């Protein structure tokens, strides 16, 4: 873990140095601009420039990363005293499956809409990582996005991505038409009925 501690700190130090350099940038259109002329505290009588605050913060980051490296070399921080590996086999595999699943989820949102992507992700997670019975997994991964749809899109009118125009026109627009036309009581009935189906399938899977 000590090696990971030092390498991470070096990486962060490089980022800090880059940010210091980046803070000194001027406006794009100004070709005569000299780097770092915007970090002063009173430029042309109009107070600190736009680079002032970020520059000194990045400097603060750089100083603290150097401090971290010194501590790690002298074995004074807990991670640098530990002999455990930075990530063991389980952690690596888990990060790959969970993190990879999340990235795939995000890609799917753009392609097939938020709610369909939620269904796919829930199904993947419950079947593949959670090893739940098929029935429960399928029902959960349909009911959860349905609830979220009713809550976000219909009740709160917080409209989520709908994928391609085709998906939006053929599925979501008619669905929106239908659900927005319902009274609040009917919507609660939809909530409850789908909840009952979920509870039923959970009971069925437990037996």
């Amino acid at each position, binding site marked *: *873990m000590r090696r*990971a501690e030092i390498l*991470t700190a070096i990486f962060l130090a490089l980022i800090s140095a880059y*940010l210091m350099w*980046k*803070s000194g*940038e001027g406006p*794009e259109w100004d070709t005569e601009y000299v780097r770092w002329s915007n970090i*002063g505290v*009173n430029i042309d*009588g109009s*107070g*600190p*420039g*736009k680079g002032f*605050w*970020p520059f000194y*913060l*990045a400097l603060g*980051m750089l*100083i*603290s*990363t150097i*401090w*971290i490296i010194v*501590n790690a070399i002298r074995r*004074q921080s*807990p*991670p640098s*005293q*530990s002999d455990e590996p930075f990530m063991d086999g*389980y952690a690596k595999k*888990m*990060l790959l499956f*969970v*993190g990879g699943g*999340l990235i795939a*989820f*995000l890609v799917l*949102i*753009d*392609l097939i809409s938020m709610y369909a992507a*939620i269904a796919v*992700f*829930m199904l993947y*997670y*419950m079947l593949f*990582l*959670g090893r*739940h019975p098929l029935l429960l997994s399928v029902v*959960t991964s349909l009911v959860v996005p349905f609830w*979220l749809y009713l*809550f*976000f899109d219909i009740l*709160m*009118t*917080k409209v989520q*991505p709908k*994928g*391609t125009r085709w998906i939006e026109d053929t599925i979501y627009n008619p669905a929106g038409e239908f659900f927005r036309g319902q009274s609040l009581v009917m919507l609660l009935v939809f909530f409850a009925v789908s909840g009952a189906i979920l509870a039923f399938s959970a009971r069925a899977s437990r037996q």
Partner: protein
Amino acid sequence: MEIVEALSQGIWIALQPHNLGLAVIGVVVGLFVGALPGLGSVNGVAILLPFTFVINSATADPASPMIFLAAIYYGAMYGGAISSITLGIPGASTAVATTFDGRPMALKGEADRALVTAAVASFIGGTVATLFFTGFAPFLSSVALDFGNPEIFALMLLAFATFIGLGGDDIPKTLFSICFGLLLATVGFDQISGEPRLVFMNEREQLAVLETFGVANADESVPFFNSVGWFSRGIQFLVLAIGVYGIGEMIWTINASRYKITMTETEISFARIMRGIIGMKDAWKGTTIGSLLGFFVGILPAAGATPGSLMSYGVTKMISRDPKSYGQGNPDGVAAPEAANNSASTGAMLPMMTLGIPGSPTTAVLLAGMVIWGLEPGPRLFEDRPEFVWPLIGSFYISNIIAVLVNLAFIPLFLWVLRMPFTILAPVIFVLSIIGTYAAYDNMYDVWLMVLFGIGAYLLRILDYPLAPAVLAVVLGATAEEKLRQALLLSDGNFEVFYNPFFDRDGKGQEWWIAPVTTWIALILIALPIILWGVRKLRGAPRPTTE
């Protein structure tokens, strides 16, 4: 005694069936809106604002729409604690500090106690604040006027001073975390010069990249490619907060527990809730500090409930005899921020009503609401529109009582969430993180950034980097920088404006005491741990290590 009479009349109007009904509905809606990450009180109030027109035409009472919206605001403040405790994701910035101890309590199987503590502390905070509000509104609004740019920055400095205690023993890592958070807040368009900075790719470069991959313009139907701007949008608070807590911390918990985790073991019963309420006596310190400090910070414009809840947590921890127990599930650590955020949200109504300045985004929307109904916020509101002001204040008392009862009644439902197997709860939390981030900012770029931050946070978490200071620094960063630069612009770059009461600000030779006093307290608070650390080192005492 004039006040007592006006108030009792106000409470009477607030108790009329139509107002009472609206308060109940508002609290319940707010509770759910607040409990779901990403929505929060701002969206709840903004979305339901047009609905109040229906109310306005149905009842002739000018206070009714505002009573409804204020009830949503209250409900959401109570609800924010619920997702912090049960899911570990702070739904709003005001509930970040609640996660520090609320989440560990839930992991220890004390979720019910944490929820009860949060509810009761919120109630006390809200009620104490309402009492102050009733008694001293005109005086307090004149105090708020004395806080100009240097004063607000000094206050921010004080908030950062209490941060130092949040990070644990590793001082350089805490420092890194604070600077990193503040720096993230600077990304995007600079508020003062209006120029982009640290955006890494301007629109033209971004289009060039998209064209290289052949995805520009052709893919208009794909939202991600539409989110032109990327970093120039800035890095929003919830992006980091949900990333760190909803993704990073979650992956860390999965790895540490291997999914073998149960968060509540027993059925919830009335007796357990009662025991939780009685257990509040262990959290009196946090509740008291939170109620008082939260209110004071809340009434200052531009500060709002987040620094209030944070400073209360920091101060409670600082004066505790056992600071090490914080972050491990100390009820005081739940009570302090929850009492504070409710107290502060009542406090924030004060500058909104008497100065027309919203102290938080939610009060900004409430302000818009008042304008729509033809109520002019300002110093004369109390005299000109008593028929509006007093029923509203009366409803603060009533709404607090309703909110604590509704909240306690819903606790079994929230605990039901925790009884789900972790392999179902985990993906649900991921899904809520993603849909919540999108709902908050309507932008896929923010969602991607949130997930990437989450994975990065997980890696840093393994190496013991404290990330809470970074999350909080993002919230306060923009205000801190704005006030620092406005103050330095005022003083022509002279830092004396912060610490020297005799510094001449306006060419009239006045003395200014508030900023210097605040600054000196903050500096002492920052210096204290370092001095103590130095003393310990000189005496040759062994440095504290975990192993």
